């Protein structure tokens, strides 16, 4: 018998254009909590998805109890004693707790001696049993949808327990829990530890990690950095290991000079109590304000609130002292605010439409003759001007946008917004999923915009990009603004410290 219940060695996994895992490794001892840490995109989730059989590894081996194992898919993983509670739960709210726990592996009995049907009695008895194990006193006949998020999470854990798992993966389990709920979760984790289960715990919350884990493995850029006993570690040490890379000159020289404060947000609070609250900040003319934070810091939600795609209950947005009334995106656009959305495919491009249609859709009012007829010459001109200015590589304006590369799609979308000549430009992860060369071009575009006097807000999860491009960085954590750092003084450590300032 090996001392490890599960071991992953030399794991490599590539996606088109990205090496997500580069000879990563992980060793889990039974009856311990093993924290897996790293920045966004360090490869933690990819690693877990390889372990759970959602992704297949390009290279590498998995050993279970010292024996080489091949995990084909999640059902196979469950059969081998590996269970995963996902970052975003995927329950079926309209069905009962019991059915959710035994989904896909319902206990069967034979009706009339031969016809297999679901044995509901056994299912609910067993469900009641495992619920007790995770300290949940619920009737398994209750609909899952009636539970709170943390309770649903406990049901997910119960599901893992019912499969007699030896390894349990918890991917950011506390990101949407209150403090009391976190305590309840920790009690369950302790129970499972006593039963000899190895728990992989993914979280950004430093204090939680140091409190609950026995060992910590740190990853960076898909690579294994090291494993340490948790008692030997300090927060500073972990952050240094997580982010410690040298920055080379990846960013253009910026020549913008921030002027007077023009855009102000005061006490902005979401309709959703778990989202952004009491956010205040301002923006100068010609300034680039970076917005930093971990996944779940509600940065996108805040910007969508300002732009009118989400509702807010209180707060004020003003431009040059004049209050802006924004209830939907059109209001924002009419008042000089533009927003490049985070998910290019879901809310940016209209895939089957042409480059020309995509670039002109937000500014069609400008190309109308006689009050009704669209002037296609003016639209072609818009395409040409942007194509030259931003070096958009497209065979013609009639080409479907979905056939362009991510970087060129992004340039078209930036062109869409610039056509309206906005005063304030919100860019949400402007370089996500774009290759390095195109990234530099987009940085140049952003720098030029600021130089031309536009005020830019840039959300980014890439530390280097924030430090390299921002005049000032606003850091958010858990829906609150936890501080501002001047671009010149910013480093990964002081940003990380503010970004993990949980209440």
């Amino acid at each position: 018998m090996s001392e490890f219940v599960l071991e992953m060695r030399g794991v490599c996994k590539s996606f088109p254009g990205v090496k997500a895992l580069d000879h990563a490794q992980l060793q889990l001892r039974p009856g311990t909590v093993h924290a897996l840490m790293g920045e966004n995109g360090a490869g933690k989730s990819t690693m877990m998805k390889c372990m759970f059989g959602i992704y297949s590894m390009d290279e590498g081996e998995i050993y279970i109890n010292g024996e080489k194992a091949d995990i084909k898919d999640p059902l196979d993983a469950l059969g081998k004693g590996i269970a995963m509670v996902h970052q975003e739960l995927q329950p079926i709210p309209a069905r009962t707790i019991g059915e959710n726990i035994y989904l896909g592996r319902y206990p069967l009995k034979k009706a009339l001696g031969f016809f297999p049907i679901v044995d509901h009695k056994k299912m609910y008895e067993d469900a009641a049993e495992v619920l007790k194990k995770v300290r949940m006193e619920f009737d398994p006949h209750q609909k899952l949808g009636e539970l709170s998020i943390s309770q649903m999470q406990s049901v997910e854990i119960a599901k893992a327990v019912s499969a007699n798992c030896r390894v349990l993966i918890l991917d950011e389990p506390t990101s949407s829990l209150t403090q009391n709920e976190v305590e309840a979760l920790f009690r369950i984790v302790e129970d499972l530890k006593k039963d000899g289960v190895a728990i992989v715990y993914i979280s950004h919350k430093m204090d939680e990690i140091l409190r609950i884990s026995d060992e910590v493995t740190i990853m960076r850029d898909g690579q294994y950095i090291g494993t340490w006993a948790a008692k030997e570690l300090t927060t500073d040490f972990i952050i240094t290991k997580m982010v410690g890379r040298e920055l080379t000159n990846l960013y253009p020289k910026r020549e913008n000079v921030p002027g007077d404060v023009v855009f102000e947000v005061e006490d902005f609070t979401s309709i959703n109590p778990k989202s952004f609250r009491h956010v205040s900040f301002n923006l100068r003319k010609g300034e680039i304000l970076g917005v930093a934070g971990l996944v779940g810091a509600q940065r996108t939600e805040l910007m969508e609130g300002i732009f009118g795609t989400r509702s807010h209950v209180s707060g004020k947005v003003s431009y040059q002292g004049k209050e802006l009334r924004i209830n939907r995106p059109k209001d924002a656009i009419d008042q000089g605010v533009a927003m490049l959305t985070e998910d290019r495919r879901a809310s940016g491009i209209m895939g089957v439409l042409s480059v020309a249609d995509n670039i002109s859709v937000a500014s069609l009012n400008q190309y109308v003759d006689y009050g009704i007829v669209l002037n296609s010459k003016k639209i072609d001109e818009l395409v040409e001007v942007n194509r030259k200015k931003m070096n958009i590589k497209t065979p013609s304006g009639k080409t479907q946008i979905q056939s362009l590369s991510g970087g060129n799609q992004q340039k078209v979308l930036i062109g869409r917004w610039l056509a309206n000549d906005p005063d304030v430009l919100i860019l949400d992860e402007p370089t996500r999923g774009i290759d390095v060369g195109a990234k530099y071009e987009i940085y140049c575009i952003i720098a030029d915009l600021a130089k031309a006097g536009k005020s830019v807000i840039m959300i980014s999860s890439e530390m280097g990009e924030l430090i390299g491009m921002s005049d000032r960085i606003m850091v958010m954590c858990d829906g609150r603004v936890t501080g501002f750092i001047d671009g010149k003084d910013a480093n990964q450590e002081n940003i990380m410290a503010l970004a993990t300032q949980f209440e």
Partner: protein
Amino acid sequence: MEKKENFFQKAWKYAKANPIVVMLVIVAIIVGITKKNFFSWSNFGNLMSNTAVRFLIALGVSGCLITKGTDLSAGRQVGLAACLAGILIQRGDYASRLTKLPQMNMFVVLLIVVALGAVIGMVNGLIITKLHVPPFIATLGTQTIVYGMCLVATDAQPIGGFQQGFVDLVNFKFGNTKSFHLPLLLFVALLFGLYFWFLYNKTRHGKYMYAIGGNEVAAEVSGVNTTKTLVLIYTTAGIMYSIAGWILAGKTGGASTSMGMGYELEAIASCTIGGVSTTGGIGTVPGVLVGVLVFELLKIVLQFLGVNPYYNYIVQGLVIVIAVALDLRKYLKKK
């Protein structure tokens, strides 16, 4: 810059993208060679005027399809408009007249049915945008309601005895019926085709329609008033069905509650054959015209082949399934 292609390259590209159209045209040519009277002016005239009416309905539903919606109430709206027009256009001296109103001018009647169609279409649009009922279900509901309205209005009686002027106008043909002639309806259809082409390609409304079909969230974020655009699309559709219903009554010389039944499915099928994508954002007016033309051609071919009419439905159904399957295959290949 795009490469210039010659006519044959273009034709080959089109044939590859639209195999079902090519297949049906070939079948029609073979039937034409083997069967007498297929290539005749009267057959041509019939095809033209049948196509014209169906084209108007398909134009109406095309906007719904391009925005990833659908309109199942189309056929019953045609039926209601035909019956209502029929009741109001009956001769003042007709014995079994259904209304006590004085005899009405047929164009006033047209305005009345168009207004009703606009209201029904608008209701469809509002149910979809304001109540967020999926278009399939919303229009399934109104389909049934509209049919009920039609039964109430007519008491399920067939309607005849129209003013002669109305029947003559709708069936008017330029030229000699025995030899070369063009039905008036052909020009009506072309006029509406031009109008829709302009609407889809040269106006903000058209661009917004394609944008919603391409990605509704992105359209909303780009400042498109999606509610207004969608309501307008369904309202326009209702108007088109009403015009088609009014014409259909005159063309047939009578109206009954079963009129228009299943037309929505034929219109949707025609649009799909003509390249309107079921996944949204794609579709052109010439494409819709080709689709309708091909579908009507199919019907005439089956009739000339002497196929038992009961089999027609089976063949038409197969064509619909194959057309949609081919359309999806095009889309899947790109992924």
